[in-house]
């Protein structure tokens, strides 16, 4: 369970990333955070694994306040919170398997990982993860030889290999075309249901949020302006979140093609 209590974040340049956020994310939920760019979606998500550190309030993950965590604790927190990025963030010159094995870094000693001495079960776990996202035939390809969609699937496999309790996805489909976007979201949803991994996804496409989310959190200017199950959401809700009428480019489309 993730609990935000009066969480605020002010960046060193004075920008307010988050303003007094109060919300609770229950285990197993598939939450989509929507909002315009600059609304604080990324800051929200990155606070949970402390890639950014909120400046006040308390943020509890599984009942422990993570805001005063230091390196050792932080590593432990990050092993149970996997993350997927907009730009996939793979090591382009390394092969797919090695990229996926990087998901085990938090569980592997420094020396073992530097010498590539991964445990047998870690390697088979990595392979299984690649199989689950249907990219096991590319195992020895260099990451930069793959298409965008394939790279994002590899990064999902990396997170799976991590065996996380939570998955954070920061705009996972923003760099992909519509069919591939739906494919990636389908995998995320499937993993959420099958492994019961709490998943929090940042999106700015309204139709995708409606299609995949259990619950939607709307953000504007660092504040939560909507929070509720997807059944309560209508086009009007989005207009309120965005503070303007809905446009063509707020929709990804292409749901039928995939």
């Amino acid at each position: 369970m993730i609990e935000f209590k009066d969480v605020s974040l002010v960046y060193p340049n004075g920008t307010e990333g988050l303003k007094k956020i109060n919300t609770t994310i229950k285990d197993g939920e598939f939450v989509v955070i929507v909002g315009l760019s600059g609304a604080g979606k990324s800051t929200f998500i990155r606070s949970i694994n402390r890639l950014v550190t909120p400046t006040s309030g308390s943020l509890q993950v599984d009942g422990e306040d993570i805001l005063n965590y230091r390196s050792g604790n932080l590593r432990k927190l990050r092993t149970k919170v996997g993350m997927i990025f907009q730009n996939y963030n793979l090591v382009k010159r390394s092969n797919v398997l090695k990229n996926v094995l990087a998901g085990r870094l938090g569980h592997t000693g420094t020396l073992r990982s530097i010498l590539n001495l991964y445990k047998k079960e870690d390697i088979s776990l990595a392979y299984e993860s690649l199989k689950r996202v249907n990219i096991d035939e590319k195992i020895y390809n260099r990451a930069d030889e793959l298409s965008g969609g394939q790279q994002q699937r590899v990064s999902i496999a990396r997170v799976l290999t991590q065996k996380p309790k939570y998955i954070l996805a920061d705009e996972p489909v923003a760099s992909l075309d519509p069919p591939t976007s739906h494919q990636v979201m389908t995998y995320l949803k499937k993993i959420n249901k099958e492994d019961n991994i709490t998943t929090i996804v940042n999106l700015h496409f309204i139709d995708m949020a409606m299609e995949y989310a259990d619950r939607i959190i709307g953000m504007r200017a660092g504040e939560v302006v909507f929070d509720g199950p997807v059944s309560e959401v209508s086009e009007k809700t989005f207009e309120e979140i965005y503070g303007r009428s809905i446009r063509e480019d707020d929709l990804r489309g292409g749901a039928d093609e995939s």
Partner: protein
Amino acid sequence: MTNENNSLAEKKTPPIYPVKTKVQVSIIFFVILGIYLFSMFWTQKEMVGGFSGAFENMFTVMEKFFPPNFGVIGAIWGPLVETIQMAIIATTIAAILTVPLAVLAARNVTTFKPLYYTTRTVLNILRTIPDLVLAVIFVGLFGIGLFPGILALVVFSLGILAKLISETIEAVDMNPLEAMRASGGNVYQVIWYALVPQVLPQFTSLVLYVFEINIRASVVLGFVGAGGIGLILNQQLGFYNYPNAMMIIVLIFAVVIIIEYISTKLREALI
């Protein structure tokens, strides 16, 4: 129609560069031109002989140096190999020592500012000392031989390598590093998994490049007593034994060309 005419009349053609930039560039140009003219004037004043004697001298020099004495090849082979070994050992040690220094001197990885500035400053000081001066100092400390030569080369190449590699590190894609950190990797794992693969080709290429420089530098270092073929060359020149000296020069020339060729080919394959 009237509208179109109006817009035509108001058409403005802005200069491609702002006037301020133009003035600045012109001033810089004239200052540099002035420095050139000034230094040309001064060097001319110092060159008393000019070129007149050079051609005559060239024939005397040619006469003295040719033909090279092929008989000494056997005797100079040892020192030549020593010179190459010197360069190899020095480059290897420098390459190993460079790794931590380059990481500490990279702004994006070493976020702790004082550490970054300290390393940068030390490297800058290191680079200002000419290799010949280093050799003279180390020969004074440890006596004539290979060891001071190797030390001088290590310090000299460390300055270049750490600087160039830290710049390569600063140009790296930071996203994979963030991903490794997000999956619970510690500092060493982040560096090893996300940074090293990105830097490795440039690193190898730069090490080979510094190796080429070291081969040439180690010859010169011999002149001040730092061992190897340079020492022998200096002796032969001192004894006015020009045919022997010529043979040494030809041999060095051949070796340097071969090594540079191999190294260039390797570097092309890497990048």
